[in-house]
């Protein structure tokens, strides 16, 4: 190897300091192997540790419904502990509190340079420090002038002279007065319903409570689009019709105990990662102690895991889950394989269910034709479900819910879980598998006719909405059929609460800069019902303020009573008292002090007589609430299954049709790196990555397509394409792989880059009950 270059010590130092990038840039310099060591080639990798006098805080991850616990340490720059004689090292495996360098950033606090470390907590109940990669980047997404997050919004802005005039930075007083004046004029001229709010209840308890009170009690408008738990148009209506509530009923420990996971329309590996990691390792999915039936149109890693565990992957034709659910019940009922005792004791409507599902059209051979799943696999799935009845977590999520027949899918899987007795037992449940952290509890009464996401779109379409407040929502990414609706939003008086400049703020008349996670004491709950106080630990950027404070200022300016909270604690206390008696959401016995004391694990609810109830629909739930289920009669209701009797998934009046022009079904999945609208992943206002390391993993919208379809279309991996629907187009990069079946393509939901975001092609047609628009879209593909 005469021409093989030798590494120099300087280069070694350079590459050691800089991580793995471009390793082995070889240069001349060192005599080959003259000694046993390169003198001076130092092991320079080292993470500074917080000193003993560092400030300490408890929090929970700002992203998904698992809400992993994190500790926060803050110390003066340069005052970190030297890495000598640490008992902690070397750290054994499975400890997420080994301080990876991405957990720490440099920022300013009270004018001084500090290091802020946000590190997974080994003592957290939900995760035991087993974090996901987006959680790992909690610190990197904090505001710092040394990070890409320096683009945070810092001052209120208004268009003083209306549309066409520039957005100008003004004082809070001026922004609030300008907004209040314009809102009042619209109310006076067009009535209260002309003023609407779109919100996401992941925006913390205090903010949700403030905005709903402002809209319903203050303005007296019913024009609300958003998702919270207690409202009409709730995404969980199908589940709620069976068990009485859409609230998730299991506890995290069930992922250690279950014998079988039945997972439909839920990519838990990416969307509730820490739960899934728990199932893989302590639950035994990795070694077959736990089995999984995975129902999905996409052959992803979870499909392989299911098969490896001794379970099944059912590659379903998108949109046909209700038929699969009915067919599984057909086999179970016909062959007496269900839990007769549980059905007799805890349910009503079984005869209706029996009559419906025993129809020939649900026989596995016939269901196979609709679902694309071989009859033999449907039978094998029924056998596994019967074998592990009372030990199975039957779970479903947005993949089946965000459709025009999402209600029917929910009813089918909910009834399937219940007739097998999977409710309120260790390792067994019938539940949604996720969502987002809960931020809505107390439900102010609605003044007029009930509203929903669906009716908001209808009202906007008809021109009835004259002002819209986009509250903790990126309207230009999150709402459907953007091509049709953006011009309508542009004409309205648009008010936006945001932390970053986005495409939505660019078009707003008023921009309120919001402070967020880590900047004040926010409250959220995980989907296994642990309520957390995420403590404030750092300064908010510029003049930004909590969203609830902004609402209260506006309410006072508009002369509305009841918005005099001095701090976030006062709102929590007001809300928690109002939940008393709620069978699934009672937090009235949990004080602010309790939350502070609960460390990073939070407090599980409902809590009654000083006892947290771990599992809804369990014997302990029955003791506390007087019924096994959350229905009025305490029974699970199976009669809603009759909704499946005549269901034809592809001939539903609201469902768009596959045609020769639009021959492919486009479905969507969520990627772990891109939480929600990707607001901390990529900024769609300035077009810059906010966490570059995560962005680099998915730097363009991937369009996953089956090799047979790719061949037919003459496209290959790496090609730029347009995905076109009847409503618009999105741009993406082809990835040819055996993930989707022929006839189906897949993209990342809510991918934030403007021209690549899936709501460029979706339609606003929505399930009449769930009010969720269809994420299954007929499309074609053209090369760019």
């Amino acid at each position, binding site marked *: 190897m005469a021409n093989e270059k030798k590494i120099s010590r300087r280069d070694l130092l350079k590459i050691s300091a800089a991580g793995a990038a471009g390793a082995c840039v070889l240069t001349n310099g060192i005599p080959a192997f003259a000694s046993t060591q390169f003198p001076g080639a130092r092991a320079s990798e080292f993470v500074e540790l917080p000193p003993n006098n560092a400030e300490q805080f408890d929090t929970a991850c700002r992203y998904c419904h698992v809400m992993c616990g994190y500790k926060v340490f803050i110390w003066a720059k340069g005052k970190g502990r030297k890495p000598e004689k640490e008992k902690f090292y070397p*750290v054994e495996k499975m400890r997420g509190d080994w301080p990876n360098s991405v957990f720490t950033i440099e920022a300013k606090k009270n004018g001084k340079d500090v290091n802020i470390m946000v590190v997974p907590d080994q003592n957290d109940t939900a995760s035991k420090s087993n974090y996901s990669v987006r959680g790992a980047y909690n610190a990197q997404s904090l505001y710092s002038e040394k990070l890409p997050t320096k683009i945070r919004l810092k001052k209120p802005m208004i268009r003083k002279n209306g549309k066409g005039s520039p957005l100008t930075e003004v004082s809070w007083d001026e922004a609030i007065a300008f907004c209040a004046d314009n809102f009042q004029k619209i109310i006076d001229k067009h009535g209260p319903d002309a003023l609407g709010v779109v919100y996401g209840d992941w925006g913390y308890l205090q903010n949700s409570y403030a905005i709903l009170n402002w809209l319903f009690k203050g303005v007296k408008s019913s024009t609300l689009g958003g998702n919270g738990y207690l409202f009409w148009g709730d995404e969980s209506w199908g589940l709620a019709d069976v068990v009485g509530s859409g609230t998730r009923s299991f506890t995290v420990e069930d992922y250690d105990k279950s014998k079988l996971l039945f997972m439909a329309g839920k990519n838990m590996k990416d969307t509730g990662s820490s739960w899934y990691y728990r199932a893989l390792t302590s639950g035994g999915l990795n070694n077959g102690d736990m089995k999984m039936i995975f129902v999905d149109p996409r052959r992803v890693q979870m499909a392989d895991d299911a098969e490896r565990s001794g379970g099944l992957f059912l590659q379903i034709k998108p949109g046909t889950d209700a038929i699969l659910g009915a067919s599984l019940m057909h086999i179970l009922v016909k062959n007496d394989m269900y839990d007769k005792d549980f059905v007799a004791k805890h349910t009503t409507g079984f005869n209706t269910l029996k009559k419906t599902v025993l129809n020939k059209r649900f026989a596995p051979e016939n269901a196979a034709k609709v679902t694309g799943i071989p009859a033999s696999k449907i039978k094998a799935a029924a056998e596994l479900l019967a074998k592990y009845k009372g030990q199975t977590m039957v779970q479903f999520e947005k993949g089946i819910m965000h459709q025009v027949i999402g209600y029917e899918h929910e009813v089918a899987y909910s009834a399937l879980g219940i007739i097998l007795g999977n409710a309120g037992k260790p390792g067994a449940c019938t539940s949604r598998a996720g969502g987002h952290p809960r931020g809505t509890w107390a439900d102010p009464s609605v003044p007029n006719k009930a509203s929903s996401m669906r009716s908001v779109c209808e009202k906007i379409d008809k021109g009835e909405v004259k002002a819209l407040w986009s509250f903790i929502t990126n309207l230009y990414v999150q709402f459907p059929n953007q091509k049709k609706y953006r011009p309508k939003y542009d004409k309205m008086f648009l008010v936006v609460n945001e932390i970053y400049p986005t495409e939505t703020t660019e078009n707003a008349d008023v921009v309120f800069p919001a402070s967020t996670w880590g900047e004040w004491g926010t409250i959220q709950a995980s989907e296994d019902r642990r309520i957390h106080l995420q403590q404030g630990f750092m300064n908010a950027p510029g003049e930004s303020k909590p969203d609830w404070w902004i609402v209260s200022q506006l309410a006072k300016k508009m002369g509305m009573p009841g918005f005099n909270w001095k701090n976030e604690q006062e709102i929590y206390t007001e809300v928690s008292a109002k939940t008393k008696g709620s069978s699934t959401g009672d937090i009235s016995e949990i004080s602010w002090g309790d939350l502070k004391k609960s460390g990073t694990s939070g407090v599980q609810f409902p809590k009654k007589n000083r006892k947290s109830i771990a599992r809804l629909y369990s014997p302990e739930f029955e003791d506390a609430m007087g019924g096994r289920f959350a229905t009025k009669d305490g029974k699970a209701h199976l009669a809603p299954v009759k909704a499946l009797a005549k269901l034809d998934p592809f001939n539903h009046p609201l469902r768009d049709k596959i045609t020769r022009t639009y021959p492919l079904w486009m479905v969507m999945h969520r990627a772990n790196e891109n939480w929600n609208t990707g607001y901390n992943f990529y900024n769609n206002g300035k077009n810059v990555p906010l966490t570059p390391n995560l962005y680099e993993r998915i730097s363009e919208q991937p369009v996953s397509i089956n090799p047979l379809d790719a061949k037919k279309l003459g496209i290959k991996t790496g090609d730029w394409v347009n995905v076109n629907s009847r409503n618009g187009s999105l741009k993406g990069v082809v990835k040819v792989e055996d993930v989707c079946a022929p006839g189906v393509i897949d993209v990342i939901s809510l991918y934030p880059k403007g021209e690549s975001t899936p709501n460029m092609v979706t339609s606003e047609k929505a399930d009449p009950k769930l009010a969720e628009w269809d994420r299954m879209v007929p499309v074609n593909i053209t090369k760019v």
Partner: protein
Amino acid sequence: MDETKEKQASNENCMSRRKLLKTAGCAGAAALLAVGMSSKAGASINSTYPQVRIGNLKDVKEGNPVKFDYPLIGRKSVLIDCGCVVEGGIGPKKSIVAYSMFCTHLGCGVELDGSSQMLVCECHQTVYNPKESGRVVEGPAPSNLPMVSLDIDSSSGDIFAVGVAGLIYGLRNNLLDGKEVK
């Protein structure tokens, strides 16, 4: 380019295929630089990497990874011949690279997957690409797999480990809290 030509080209140079969907390469670097303390703090450590013979060119074949401890005893690493030119590769084809076998997520074992030729974590399925400096393709690991710097004695074909780029899981410094490999 037809399929055959594409295959030939990729056999010669793996890097030509890398800029498809998940482009990266310097994720680990960005992370460390963002923290901004690695190199400065390291100056206080008076340790140097050992230079250790870990094999010979004739032992390393495509599909036949060689495991070795480095730089501390028990810190498993793996030597891989990717069969084509790769980032940081050495040897006649610039195809040989080595990595720590400790996942940067929770320290579980990382093994070369025969079918995908990726390094995959046994616990939570982080996938690292050995052809791209050990960058994360997907999964929970927040940083790239530490890459072992290699050198070759041109006369004998002996391969030596001479350093590590990136902090190995479980350690505060790659040369502390264990016994160095000789």
